[in-house]
């Protein structure tokens, strides 16, 4: 069953706030094998001009994928999660994510279309601090493989 195109333009407001911790940044950096001191040492981060340790460029996947999963779980959208794959992903950073950030994420459905028997869903999310400072815009395309 094709996805419901009436979902194009739908916006999903933040449902929670995510507080970025030094420990989670270090855990993520360990998992990708990146030993940069800017992820772990507040003094090194400060020397590089940052108020606290910063996060790797793809760190926001932690909250980005969760928001996408919440959208695709809506039964009215008609998406078969077991057939879904991540088609592409992009992050535009307005400034580096850093420890202490309290972030919220607003997700938008930009497009839904069918090509070569597969359903495509394009979304973007605005990530900002609780004070309204823009931090990052994420873009993703999800593909639901045809039967």
């Amino acid at each position, binding site marked *: 069953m094709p996805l419901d195109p009436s979902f194009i333009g739908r916006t999903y407001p933040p449902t929670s706030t995510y507080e970025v911790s030094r420990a989670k940044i270090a855990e993520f950096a360990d998992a990708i094998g990146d030993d940069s001191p*800017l992820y772990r040492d507040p003094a090194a981060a400060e020397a590089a001009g940052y108020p606290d340790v*910063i996060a790797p460029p793809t760190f926001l996947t932690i909250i980005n994928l969760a928001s996408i999963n919440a959208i695709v779980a809506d039964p009215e959208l008609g998406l078969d999660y077991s057939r879904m794959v991540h088609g*592409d992903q992009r*992050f535009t950073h307005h400034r580096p994510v850093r420890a202490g950030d309290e972030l919220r994420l607003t997700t938008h459905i930009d497009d839904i279309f069918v090509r070569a028997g597969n359903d495509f869903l394009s979304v973007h999310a605005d990530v900002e601090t609780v004070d309204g400072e823009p931090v990052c815009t994420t873009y993703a395309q999800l593909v639901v493989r045809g039967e």
Partner: protein
Amino acid sequence: MSMNVGDELPGLSVHVTRDQLVRYAGASLDFNPIHWNERFATEVGLPNVIAHGMLTMALGGRMISDWLGDPGRVVEYGVRFTRPVVVPDDAEGALVEFTGKIGEVRDDGTARVDITAKFDGKTVLGKAQAVVRVA
């Protein structure tokens, strides 16, 4: 740091192992069983457990930030996931090899880096590009 079109970044080769997939699952909170459960992966038609596309993307990002010295200078980073990285249950894991080259130096103080990622002789990321601040 001077950047010129055609400059090549130091490459990065990573042996992605099952151990790393489990660590990455926990760190990224992506617990999709295709990334750690062989029985589940093969039931849904995959050859075996596959790496998180986002892990492959993150490793490409690591090559860029290693080169820059400051990951905060990565202003944009995007990839297309074109092929899965199949990770065997052994100590070697899957060898993924990354290369990067400067594709464009812009007037606004940024440069575009074009990235390739190869596994088993084939590219696994398409249109992989980062925009970085030159200074």
